[in-house]
């Protein structure tokens, strides 16, 4: 039996979804309202065209937002709650894009002898030219990606495919973004004589690039340093005891690149994989809650002593053996099978000096 466990509905998710849906509804209404007044230049677009534009641009803005959440949360932990329910945002984006596609199909691709879906593929096939490139096909590609991602977004697929494969598939969202960008650049932008759409696209791309660069730089530090090998095999030198603060995790990278989180809890040290069994969230950036490692992304929990989620849950992560060498923490880079019990290493009195936390005066 596949033992997947959905991140269940709760109040936070309901509020999150309500805000997102309200924002989308407002966006479409505002667009229709002001778009109908855009007659100062020639004639105003008809309602069908307004719908196409409203839903299309809304989907693009949402997509830009989704892609910003990851780096934002990396840069400022207060954005983590936005990450918590990001998948619902993905499904919402796909729904809005479906609204765009439906309004395009029922207008530009309707009223002919060809069924709309067939017309979509035969009406414009100018792919061998740059000016007048068949931009619609780029939109179709993006929409297919969004559909696949929305369809596989449920935790069932996550458990079925495993977090690594699932994550790899979901990286295609960047491909979807690139395709939509081309869809707009070769389509609507060619006709527009106002720079607003171009500015919006440029801002979106620039924001994403800058956020990802900043987050990448920060991440390179937080993902931990490579641990050098110790004098005796197979041990590696993880860190000094003093570097790990009470109640927190410390991340090191093993020689093979695998990240490990070492936690300090009531004078004892334990090491587990840094990758959450749910979506590979960074456990070392989590907290100890009720003595359990708590993932910063969706709150999955693992016991320090064996890497198992407390009952009734069944997730397990790999544990690692630790050893002290004076003030240094040594780690055996060979992972124990997920869920293996390892006794915590007790920090001797001499090294128990707690690291003080800054607090408000």
């Amino acid at each position, binding site marked *: 039996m596949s033992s997947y466990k959905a991140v269940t509905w709760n109040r*936070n998710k309901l509020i999150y979804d309500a805000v997102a849906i309200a924002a989308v509804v407002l966006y479409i209404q505002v667009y*229709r309202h002001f778009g109908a*007044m855009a007659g100062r230049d020639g*004639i105003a677009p008809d309602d069908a065209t307004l719908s196409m534009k409203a839903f299309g641009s809304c989907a693009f803005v949402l997509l830009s937002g989704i892609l910003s959440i990851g780096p934002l949360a990396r840069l400022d932990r207060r954005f983590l709650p936005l990450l918590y329910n990001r998948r619902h945002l993905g499904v919402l984006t796909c729904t809005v894009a479906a609204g765009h596609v439906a309004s395009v199909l029922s207008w530009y*691709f309707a009223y*002919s002898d060809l069924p709309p879906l067939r*017309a979509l593929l035969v009406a414009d096939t100018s792919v061998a030219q740059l000016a007048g490139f068949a931009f619609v096909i780029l939109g179709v590609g993006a929409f297919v990606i969004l559909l696949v991602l929305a369809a596989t977004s449920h935790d069932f697929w996550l458990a079925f495919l495993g977090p690594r494969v699932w994550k790899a598939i979901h990286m295609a969202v960047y491909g979807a973004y690139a395709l939509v960008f081309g869809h707009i650049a070769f389509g*609507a932008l060619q006709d527009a004589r*106002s720079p607003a759409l171009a500015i919006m696209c440029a801002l979106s791309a620039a924001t994403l690039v800058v956020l990802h660069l900043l987050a990448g730089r920060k991440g390179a530090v937080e993902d931990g340093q490579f641990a050098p090998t110790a004098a005796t095999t197979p041990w590696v030198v993880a860190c000094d005891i003093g570097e790990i603060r009470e109640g927190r995790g410390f991340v090191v990278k093993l020689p093979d690149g695998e990240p490990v989180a070492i936690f300090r809890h009531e004078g004892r040290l334990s090491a587990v994989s840094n990758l959450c069994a749910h979506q590979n969230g960074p456990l070392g950036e989590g907290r100890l809650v009720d003595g359990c490692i708590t993932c910063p992304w969706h709150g999955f929990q693992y016991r320090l002593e064996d890497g198992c989620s407390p009952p009734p849950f069944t997730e397990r992560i790999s544990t690692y053996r630790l050893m002290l060498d004076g003030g240094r923490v040594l780690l055996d880079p060979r992972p124990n099978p997920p869920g293996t019990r390892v006794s915590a290493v007790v920090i001797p009195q001499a090294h128990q000096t707690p690291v003080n936390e800054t607090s408000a005066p």
Partner: protein
Amino acid sequence: MSEHNDTFFIGWSNDISAGLRRFLMRAAAFVVVGLCVVSALLALSITDPARSLFGANAAPDIPLDVTLRGVLSSEPYPFLLTVGDAARPAGHGVLLSGDGKHAAVIDRAALGGQVVEVKGLLLKRGALDMLVLSESPRVLQNIQPAAPAAPVPMGRWRVVGEICDGKCGAGIMSPGTGIAHKACASLCLIGGVPPVLVLTHPLEGRQFLMIADSQGRALDRGVLRFVGMRVAMEGEVERRGDVVLIKVDTGKLRRL
């Protein structure tokens, strides 16, 4: 480094610290207001691609149901040259199409060259008249067709303009021109709606031309990739009534 100690968020837990709650409320307000602002700016900045095509004063007229009489021509596309009445002078050209993205349903062999009465919705934009037939043309037996007016050659021209379908171009869709509308226009042309060439610079006062291949036949699908954008072309030009037709060497179409 600031640690936002109080802000560790656990999705399934409902106790969120006051500080984080405030932050999230502000973020939500920012997102909602921000989206509205982006939406309004984008919507207000929509431009009509037909404006650069037809010029500032070429908003389409309100479509009207009309009955017209004239001589029917079927090559390269069905069109009517009016016989002249109180509303229109004789020899005024009106393009014909069917509903949706369909050609006018006409028995070309039987009706070509006959004087007919046609009914339908007249789309009009500038000098471009497009009648969407609501019923089949009726031959007027009591009016003898005059000898078919011979085409008047106007020489060879090199012109620049946009090929669009004469129906959306006449304003039934807004916008009905441009790249965004390209696939739609292509479907119209595939369906047999007459294409028109809207000129960037008028040719002897004409803003739009009927367009055929160099043999005077309907354009084939090879030109679809040139639809909806500015293209340069060359061809023999001739006048039929007040309609001007260009017979382009389709092999020499060039995107600008």
